[in-house]
């Protein structure tokens, strides 16, 4: 069992690297049980979208909510 600290770290890190099967499984299980980390995972995607829109000087952001447990690298 991983805790919220470990889960959020993985949710951040999966934007830079592919998680191992073991990590994915542990994360999936944790996120299934934990609403706060589920929200955190969605926010990671939103944060990336926001940052890119900001960098592009756009006034708005696409509403893209990605599932927190199935977004490997987001390129």
């Amino acid at each position: 069992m991983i805790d919220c600290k470990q889960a959020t770290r993985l949710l951040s890190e999966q934007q830079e690297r592919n998680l191992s099967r073991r990590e994915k499984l542990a994360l999936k299980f944790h996120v299934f049980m934990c609403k706060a980390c589920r929200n955190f995972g969605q926010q990671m995607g939103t944060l990336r979208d926001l940052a890119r829109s900001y960098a592009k000087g756009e006034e708005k952001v696409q509403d893209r909510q990605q599932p927190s447990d199935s977004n490997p690298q987001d390129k």
Partner: protein
Amino acid sequence: MTESVPVGRDGIEAGRTPQAQTLQDAQFLTELRQQMLKFARLQLRDDDQAEDAVQEALAGALKNEDSFKRQAALRTWVFSILKYKIADILRYRQRVIATSELGDDEHREQAFMDGLFDSGGHWHKAERPSSWTGPQGGVHSDHFWRVFDACLNGLPEKQARVFMMREFIELESEEICEQLTLSTSNLHVTLYRARLRLRACLENGWFDPSTAEEATP
């Protein structure tokens, strides 16, 4: 590295090609310049260097303006030029800054993490991320971007730099590690901390209406 060019709020010569219309649109150019400056200042934290980078990016854009027909494409393109300028400046600066200056304050980070998670590694009740689905629509507003600005400015410098290299300039992890002589795990933890801070700041400042007033700049 600054070359002087006739660019500015109102410094564009008129009548080149029909395609160049957008760069001669004074209002569009003023807005674009403001956005670019904001972006450059945030990353470089040096007004003069930011001005130079923006000026050079706009000069580069003007030289090749014929290839750009639509305003939206033009904006994206000009920003991509700016990103390269900024990346260059950061690379140069990195070579002259001692690595020690970029060292994180581990005590500060430990305290920050303790504020978010209990000893069992679970979220403290008050810090649990909530759902952002509700007020997403409001993200279109100027007000939101001011909050976003303030949150970015609130990041510790190293975290801000790494976050922007990753998410604004969209550099790959390997390149950031190389530029900043960071280990991969160091990069991961730095991005993680930046994201923890940003998301908390946005939630307090924007998505959670009960605290929105306090965090607004």
